[in-house]
């Protein structure tokens, strides 16, 4: 019977068709998620060897991490704190007493022969996440329930070396702390899944719980799908948002096709893999591993004081949703910019600092700061094809530069030049902006009379006109002239390193061209 069913399921694969995917009203999509999230701790879960990413293979392993006989576990309080933060951020009820269990299975990435997890008495349960219009990643109105959160250990990593014909094991990841977050099957469509997961990543990153990356395996997702209440099918180890979406589309389409053909009996509880195009049967319920769960006899109960839930809530930073609401209203940011800095907490902190320093000065508006921060500051890194590095220019210096432009001490063009110079040559960072303006001679001329300044401007403009005589003679009127004047102003700005304001140059060019 088992073999018969299996053969049906191997043949029952469903390809993602070329036609656009859609949910059918008569075939209800019901999905739940299991999210494995690596905790950003210095040490591992039950030993004090360091956690690592991309370290030399097997260089970060204690005797417990590789299951040497006699080595015993001791819970790392860092992991407990981060798990409690995650539980609080996901609005869960924290259990005052939770326990560890052993989940037995034999596999070469699991040196103990069992995984220490929390099966019977998890750390937290009954939470929820509200998706709403202030969400960082989309505008969906829905509440997703959180079934439970459990602390558990990660496994080692396997390398299938087909060239040399061996399976190699790197145990650096072994015993790295994880939380497994299990949602209720509340997802009714693909968009809800996508928005929830992206919000979850942002939330964990923002709370300092996890790096939040799916690509590096810091977050790994299993999805469960059931259509019209038929047995749920699980798809494991999906490595990206795209893969999750495609696997769900493929599996939903497969189940709907079977139901349309009155073959609902062929939908059975099973684990299916996804090969990039279609889901395929991996393991039926009848063949499921018996994990022989039992309480761990070496780890004591986690016994929490009843005050701890409130204490954790008090130290949590504001949620991304709360920050988004503030950035959109008080700081008048566009949603895409707000989302960007919320996704990069160090930039968000920097932005708030610049705003704090600049906006206390009367007369400078929020949109000026926003323009400077996103277009000038971040934009310069982009133009130079460099990774944003806020250490190069501390927030107080960017604020000084904004002040200098605002007060007319330096033109916008010169300020851009200075900003570019500061990013390219950060070793001048010991000087103030005022000193740097003088050092690079970028300030507006202040020690000459108006007559001498006018004379100097005239000389510069005449020289520019001579250089570009052939291109300006033919067009004296209309848009082309205006365009040419902008070109001439640009040339003059370059000659004066932006020290003369563009409106002064424009007036002079109009005067000189009019005379010709």
């Amino acid at each position: 019977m088992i073999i018969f069913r299996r053969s049906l399921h191997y043949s029952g694969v469903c390809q993602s068709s070329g036609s656009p995917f859609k949910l059918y009203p008569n075939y209800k999509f019901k999905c739940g998620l299991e999210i494995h999230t690596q905790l950003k701790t210095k040490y591992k879960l039950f030993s004090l060897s360091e956690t690592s990413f991309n370290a030399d293979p097997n260089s970060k392993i204690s005797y417990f991490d590789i299951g040497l006989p006699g080595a015993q576990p001791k819970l790392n309080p860092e992991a407990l704190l981060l798990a409690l933060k995650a539980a609080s951020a996901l609005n869960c009820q924290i259990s005052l007493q939770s326990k560890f269990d052993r989940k037995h299975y034999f596999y070469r990435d699991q040196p103990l022969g069992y995984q220490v997890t929390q099966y019977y008495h998890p750390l937290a349960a009954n939470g929820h996440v509200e998706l709403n219009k202030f969400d960082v990643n989309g505008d969906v109105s829905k509440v997703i329930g959180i079934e439970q959160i459990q602390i558990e250990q990660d496994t080692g990593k396997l390398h299938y070396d087909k060239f040399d014909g061996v399976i190699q094991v790197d145990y650096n990841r072994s015993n790295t702390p994880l939380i497994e977050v299990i949602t209720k099957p509340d997802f009714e469509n693909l968009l809800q899944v996508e928005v929830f997961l992206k919000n979850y990543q942002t939330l964990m990153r923002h709370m300092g719980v996890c790096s939040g990356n799916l690509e590096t395996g810091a977050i790994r997702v299993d999805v469960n799908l059931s259509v019209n209440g038929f047995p749920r099918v699980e798809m494991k180890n999906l490595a990206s948002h795209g893969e999750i979406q495609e696997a769900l589309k493929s599996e939903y389409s497969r189940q709907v096709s079977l139901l349309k053909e009155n073959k609902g009996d062929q939908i059975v509880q099973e684990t299916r893999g996804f090969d990039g195009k279609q889901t395929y049967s991996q393991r039926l319920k009848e063949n499921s591993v018996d994990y022989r769960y039992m309480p761990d006899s070496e780890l004591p109960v986690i016994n929490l004081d009843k005050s701890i839930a409130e204490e954790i809530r008090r130290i949590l930073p504001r949620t991304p949703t709360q920050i988004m609401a503030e950035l959109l209203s008080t700081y008048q940011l566009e949603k895409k910019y707000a989302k960007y800095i919320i996704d990069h907490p160090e930039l968000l902190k920097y932005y708030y600092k610049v705003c704090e320093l600049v906006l206390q000065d009367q007369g400078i508006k929020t949109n000026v700061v926003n323009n400077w921060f996103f277009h000038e500051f971040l934009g310069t890194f982009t133009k130079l094809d460099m990774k944003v590095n806020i250490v190069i220019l501390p927030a107080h210096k960017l604020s000084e530069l904004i002040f200098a432009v605002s007060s007319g001490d330096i033109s916008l063009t010169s300020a851009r030049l200075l900003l570019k110079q500061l990013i390219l040559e950060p070793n001048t960072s010991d000087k103030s902006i005022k000193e740097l303006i003088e050092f690079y001679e970028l300030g507006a001329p202040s020690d000459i009379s108006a007559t001498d300044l006018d004379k100097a401007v005239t000389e510069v403009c005449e020289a520019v006109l001579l250089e570009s005589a052939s291109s300006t003679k033919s067009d004296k009127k209309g848009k082309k002239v205006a365009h040419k004047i902008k070109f001439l102003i640009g040339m003059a700005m370059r000659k004066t390193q932006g020290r003369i304001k563009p409106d002064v140059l424009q007036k002079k060019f109009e005067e000189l061209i009019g005379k010709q």
Partner: protein
Amino acid sequence: MLRRGIRSFSISIGTCQKAKVSQEVLSRDEISKLLNTPTWKVGDLMKTTEEDIQDVKVDSSIIRKMLKLSGLKEDVSPERETELIRALKLQMGFIKKLYGTGEEMSVRGKKSNDTNFRLMAEDHKPDTPLTLDILLAEIDALPNKVDPEKGEFTSSIDIKKLRSSNNPLFSSKSIEKV
């Protein structure tokens, strides 16, 4: 609870009370010989009757599934299978006594199978409840608790010394070459 289980199964702990240090093992062959010459086994210490294990249900299919899950060879002889069935019954009977409910593990659900047995009586006593302050203080103290004797330092295990061809990764199984 552990004692109750032991009493019921009449384990004779006296036979393994005294530890003795054997002669130094000097070569690979001696290690191999030592490991392949067992002097006692847990099963021999458990004095049990057919009555103790008659309610424990273990059959051929369970044994073969266990062998498969354990990565062991499944093609055992009927005699060996009978031995394994009896050994597993014995073990399950012992665990049943440890849990102290008289219920079989296999029929217990998630909610009921959570008895937290401890090897040491004092482990039953819960720790002082953790407050946030205590937790933060424990985190601050962690760097002082790193113990080199537990291998808690970078490159604590020299893989190359264990087997030079393994360096730096453990090789676990040969697979088909491309």
